């Protein structure tokens, strides 16, 4: 670590500045000036690239604008919003998204926590194990999606090949309505179980040892220790991971796009994917904007919950 205050100044030019500037008002002023100049460029970028586009979306959501047709946008009030909220198509996508979020995040939580618990009980090789388990998480959704598409291929996919060699029938993973959504959940679980595992492992390592020692003096059973010590102490952190994953899963797009392209039929179309279709294949920019704004509202509520909870956890 560097010496906080050097005894001698190495650069002769600096000697002059040893006389401190007049303290007080000017310093506070320059502090404020510094804060503004340091924060505003980042803020400007965010305003230009996130807030302004969203405001534009908000404006478009009240119009019948189409990006391809061009021409002036006509103000149609809440027409887009009522159309979306009453559309049976949208309800189907909402249900698909819900099934996917609950299925994938639920599975990840159980598996991730399970793996973390098993790893935390090992004395040797924890570092290697953790590193190996983390690989899927770092891969791009493109790589993950493409590769699983290859592995789940009905004809020459390795998954069906393995099923065949143990005497089970072939499954059309990505081309049957029900199995396609299951495949999506499986692939997402494969990629993100490490995320939950990583955070659960951090929580498990933070449980103070003396609690277990006290419990074993009391001859508490393993299950009792798990239920009364491990779980309550790890749960708050685990919940952070679960909420984080739920937000991410809610806005999922790329994996669907690569793995199933929404199909077969519309069985794996999530809300994000549906917005893409409305905007870029249907060219109903106004409707897609309204759709997007509604999704953003949900994300904002979820994010607020997440951040509130995170903040509460940090203050404790």
């Amino acid at each position: 670590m560097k010496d906080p205050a050097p005894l001698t100044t190495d650069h002769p030019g600096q000697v002059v500045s040893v006389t401190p500037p007049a303290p007080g008002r000017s310093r506070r002023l320059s502090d404020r000036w510094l804060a503004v100049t340091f924060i505003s460029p980042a803020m400007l970028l965010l305003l230009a690239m996130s807030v302004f586009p969203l405001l534009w979306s908000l404006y478009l959501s009240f119009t019948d604008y189409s990006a391809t047709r061009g021409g002036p946008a006509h103000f149609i009030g809440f027409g887009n919003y009522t159309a979306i909220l009453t559309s049976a198509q949208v309800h189907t996508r909402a249900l698909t998204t819900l099934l996917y979020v609950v299925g994938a995040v639920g599975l990840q939580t159980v598996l991730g926590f399970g793996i973390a618990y098993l790893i935390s009980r090992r004395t040797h090789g924890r570092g290697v194990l953790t590193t190996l388990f983390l690989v899927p998480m770092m891969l791009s959704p493109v790589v993950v999606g493409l590769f699983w598409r290859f592995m789940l291929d009905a004809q020459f996919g390795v998954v069906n090949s393995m099923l065949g060699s143990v005497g089970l029938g072939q499954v059309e993973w990505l081309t049957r309505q029900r199995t396609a959504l299951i495949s999506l959940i499986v692939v997402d679980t494969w990629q993100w179980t490490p995320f939950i595992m990583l955070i659960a492992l951090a929580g498990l390592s933070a449980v103070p040892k003396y609690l277990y020692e006290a419990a074993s003096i009391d001859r508490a059973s393993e299950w009792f220790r798990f239920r009364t010590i491990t779980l309550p102490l790890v749960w708050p952190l685990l919940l952070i991971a679960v909420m984080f994953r739920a937000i991410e899963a809610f806005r999922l797009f790329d994996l669907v796009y690569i793995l199933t392209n929404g199909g077969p039929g519309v069985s794996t179309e999530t809300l994000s994917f549906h917005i893409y279709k409305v905007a870029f294949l249907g060219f109903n920019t106004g409707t897609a904007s309204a759709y997007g704004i509604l999704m953003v509202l949900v994300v904002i509520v979820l994010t607020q919950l997440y951040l509130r909870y995170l903040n509460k956890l940090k203050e404790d």
Partner: protein
Amino acid sequence: MAVSVDEAVSTGPARDHAPPARRLGGRGRSVLEVVLLTVLAVLMLFPVLWMLETSIKENRDVYAIPAKFFDFDVTMAHFKDVFVAPDGGRTALSVSFFNSVVVAGVSTLLATVLGVPAAWAYSRFAVRAKKDQLFFILSTRFMPPVVVVIPIFLMYREFGLIDNKLGLILIYAAFNVPFTIWMMKGFVDEVPAEYEDAAMLDGYTRLQAFWRYTLPLLVPGIAATAVFALIFSWNEFVFATFLTSSDSVRTAPPAIAGLIGGTTTDWGLVAASSVVFALPVLVFAYLVRKHLIAGVTLGAVRR
């Protein structure tokens, strides 16, 4: 909250679970746990290994039924196909890899240059409504990309930034700035403000104190943060696929995804390009493994 990835990842002595008087079947249970962990590890790693294997298989072995696990012919042809076109020139894929390097690199640099000073300012000064500002900053990162891309697309069309590397760089920088600020604020908080106060007593201005005393201490944190931003930009797909179209601008993710467009797919080539694409990420991720929790939770969860 006393949570550290160091602890989680360290191979140091784990807490002693074994009660002094080991109950009957303790050994059996331990064996069962090891077996279970091994099975899970194999399940998790199999797709990665299969990808590696496919990338070095001869084509006829790639499509073999039943799948060949060990007795296949090895070839490096797929890797050559990634970079060298049949006519000897550069492939579109290799151009896209180069584009990815440029876009990810420049956007990371931009996000770092903008984010680090902001993080320092948020950490050191009493900014009005600081908490709200920080919350706002992070929530921009949670916006669904598909929703943001619609107005961005219209905006870029006005400014001629469609199918332009600068467009991608700007949007990636905007997506990485919130992360950089949150992640770096944690690192800045760990450097005592007293260092700067002491330097200022010596006559330095606040800016000089930041530059000469705090910034050098932040370098490891900045490096880790930049690596994560690099990974996010490198892996990004949605903006890349909607905002670019020509081979000379396209980054690697949409280029690799484009390999499966036709009637037949050269899965060996897909596997090889995926390996080339994923390898740097894994290396970089390994380098920043100590900060992995903070990194993947966008700086929200840390020690």
